[in-house]
């Protein structure tokens, strides 16, 4: 198995007396895999995702992505890691309201120093593939939830990250849009994109991922592979 993400005995505790959000968690994700992380509210799902993304640091343990230790990176190193290796999709999209769709999508590429022409070409390609090219000069406030999430996905993919992390990507969408986004993620995974998805929706997990890790009180409660087609 070509392991892309490896967590070894990772714990995260907020405050000295607080309960750990993540406790002695170990897991591996292979390259090209699609994993759903599920659990009740407050179980540590989002914390786990933040740790993998380098947005936060574990209290103990080791996190390796693509062979590089993520938990020991400086803030600058973590930012560079996110540019190169990670694409993030958020529940509330986290688009920048005062930038157009194109500018939002271009942003990670520009921060990484990609050539402007190259970046625009890549952004164009993604917007077309995600069927939102017609909104290229619109502002996020004018788009529907589904369209905004597509923009967010395009932004997450512009630097061709090895790993796509999605935190409740359909949480604020209606059923139809949610399904459309789910299909999108499935397509991406089919073409080789490694995907880790946090959701509390078992149906979403069953339909669009191949493996489900259940987290309870910060620990892995179960880790099951799903078989069969999900369409």
């Amino acid at each position, binding site marked *: 198995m070509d392991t892309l993400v490896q967590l070894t005995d990772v714990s995260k505790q907020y405050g000295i007396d607080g309960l750990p959000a993540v406790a002695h968690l170990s897991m591996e994700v292979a390259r090209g895999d699609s994993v759903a992380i599920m659990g009740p509210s407050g179980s540590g799902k989002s914390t786990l995702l933040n740790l993998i993304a380098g947005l936060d640091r574990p209290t103990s343990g080791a996190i390796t992505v693509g062979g590089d230790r993520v938990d020991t990176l400086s803030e600058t190193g973590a930012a560079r890691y996110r540019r190169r290796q990670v694409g993030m999709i958020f529940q509330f999209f986290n688009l*920048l309201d*005062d930038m157009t769709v194109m500018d939002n999508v271009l942003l990670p590429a520009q921060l990484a120093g990609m050539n402007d022409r190259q970046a625009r070409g890549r952004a164009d390609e993604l917007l077309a593939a995600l069927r939102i090219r017609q909104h290229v000069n619109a502002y996020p406030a004018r788009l529907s939830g589904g369209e905004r999430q597509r923009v967010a996905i395009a932004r997450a993919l512009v630097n061709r990250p090895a790993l796509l992390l999605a935190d409740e990507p359909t949480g604020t969408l209606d059923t139809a849009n949610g399904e459309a986004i789910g299909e999108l993620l499935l397509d991406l995974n089919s073409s080789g994109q490694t995907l880790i998805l946090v959701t509390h929706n078992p149906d979403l997990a069953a339909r669009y991922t191949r493996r489900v890790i259940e987290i309870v009180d910060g620990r892995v409660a179960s880790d099951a592979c799903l078989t069969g087609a999900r369409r």
Partner: protein
Amino acid sequence: MKKIPVVRAARGGLSGRRVQAIVIGLVVFASVAAATLALGLLVDSSAPFNHAFAAQRGADVTATVSGASGTQLAATTRLPGVTASAGPFAEASVSVTAQVTPTIHVSSGHEKSTPTTVNQELTLVGRSSPGGPVDDLTLKAGHWPDGPGQVVLSSQAGLPLGVGSQVTVTGLAGSPKLTVVGIATSVTGTAQGWVTPGEIAALHAAGAPQVSQMLYRFSSAATAVAVNKDVAAVTAALPHGSVLGAQSWLDAKAQATGSYAPWVPFIAAFGVIGLVMSVLIVINVVSGAVVAGIRRIGVLKSIGFSPPQVVAAYVLQVAVPAAIGCAAGVTAGNLVAMPMLGQAAQVYGVAGLAVPLWVSVAVPLAMLALVGVTAFVIALRAGRMSAVQAIATGRAPRLERGFFAHRLIGRASRLPRPVTVGLAAPFARPSRSLATLAAIVFGVTAVIFGFGLRTSLDRIQADLSHAASEQVQVLLAGHQGPVLVNGQGSVKVSLAAQERAVQAALRAQPGTHHYVAEASGQLSVLGMSDQLSVVGFDGEASWTGYAMIAGHWYSGTGQVDVNSAFLQDTGTAVGDTYTLTSGGKHTTVQIAGEVFDTAGGQPEMIGSLSTLSAVDSGLTPSEYQVALAPGTNTGSYVNALQSALGKGYLVGVNDSGGTVLPALLGLVAALTLLIAVVAGLGVLNTVVLHTRERVHDLGVFKAIGMTPGQTIAMVVSTVAGTGLAAGLIAIPVGVALHRCVLPVMGKAAQTGLPATVLNVYQAPELILLAVSGLVIAMAGALAPAGWAARTRTATALRAE
């Protein structure tokens, strides 16, 4: 209205927004400090002598008496109208010599020459302490004499000596030496130095009458008539002839007023800038703080706070840090004011200045009221909204302000993306950005104005002193003055012989470049109310360094140059002819030019000796002006020339190192820096508000890969464009301010100003000065930029 929930809400707001509270406190602190200093300077500038006189309990009359007993003198202190008195203090007039190291003004700045010996007459008074009910002396350096052989010199004595120097009293047996242990100032200049009462007896020349000084304050001494009446009363109470002289405070005031009037306009300019900027920044800070809390106001209303309670909570939340800032600021303002007002006092030539008490009370109260009113007005608007509306207003996606700027500036692909994001940010909050722009404009204006003022003052000093061109002066003894020969006795030498001797010595002395005999006198001229000061040169004198305001240096007989006071008094202009009539003689001259020479406010005429002696046959050379060859050490030259000429002549350095210019320049620098710092704090507030408002966006930027370095660049760029723009705007404003204030200063000094004093800015200098806008902006943005860079991404993403 129930108060406890209001207090709780305010306390919660304060603890939840600690950074904002600190910024409010800091900005109010700096603004109050600046306003206290600015208003103190403005008030003291309106009548600095009066303020200093009142503070130091100046003597209305300083009487010099001899031949009156202690009982008789004591009786004068009980005369009707005498409100306070001091003395009798024994007084002695002595001749002293001292080694001084003059400061020479050269084109590259100032340099110290080798020490030279100066001779001076000093009036010394014996006092056991500097304080007292009258003439409370201000000790500026060192300590009061506490033993024999010590002297405190007056800062107005004209001797450039510091603490630790020594003076030798000549003309007394043993030539006693006195060590300078302190420098003090008397607001009315009651003496040139002070020693212990016991020391005076030792300095008293044998056979000279015992002289004492009595100091009086009267209930009525506002006018010359009143002072004369007071002096008459004292004189009548003492034995006939015992009052040798009486100095009125009005004479000291007239002298001081004339000397400080030119400086008031620039200090007033800085004062106004400081005050206006302080008010602007406080309004910006407070309004920003309350606007940032509109959503919280909505939340408070939704849980049951009434509109008055909400408004009260927010006013209290802002007023608490503001009150702390006011209290600390007025203390700091008074502390900062002490050295600055000391410099101003030196500039004004008065003993001491202090921030008036009413300023220290009024400024913090006014600032607190300003904070309260600003917070009230904005909180009232939010308080009137429904809870839902307030929450929505606080949370709503931004109106499409600044979106176009984002798109346009984002196209600048040569600039890093974080920088273009930052540059576009000010357009989202135009009012706040304008206020920040205004604050930086004020700051840079002060920098540009201060720089120009400094250059102008340097040039004025150089032009008036002629120190760069007439480095050395040789004083003649006069027509039949005594000249010491071989150290023994005195021999009367004719003026012609003196001149021959001086010229021969100058020709023989290596380093002599130019020299010319100069004659000066005072003439009563028909048609002029003031006496005319005349300066006649016996030889080519165009090198003597008089700066021309208009026209040219006189050439040949029949042409003269005059100063601005002459033109004003006579109603003439350059190019006119003027007939001088004095003492039955007359001559017609042509006014070739207007020179920059205040001549103490008197009209002045400069020309060849042959032209001016036509109306003043008594006009004869009294000194030689000497220009040295480049590279000549002035002190060595003076010592050598003095040695060659002997003691009958006085060879001196044209010392440009007075205390006024350094004090002026120090004051200008300090005021400029203070205003720039306050402007920087205004920027700090803007950037803190901006980063707090956009903390969630900051999280997004970091989540998609913005490094801490890029974050700092982005945050600093939010004000960098404003700083640059402010710098460019400030160029014409600062230059215009300089162009307005300098002529006002000249008018106060009753003189025009040469172009070299007005045209002080070069384009490259202006560009560099304008960059100070960027510096102020970046300095104010660095701290919040660092905070933004250090903020944990996950924490920022969770912020709403």
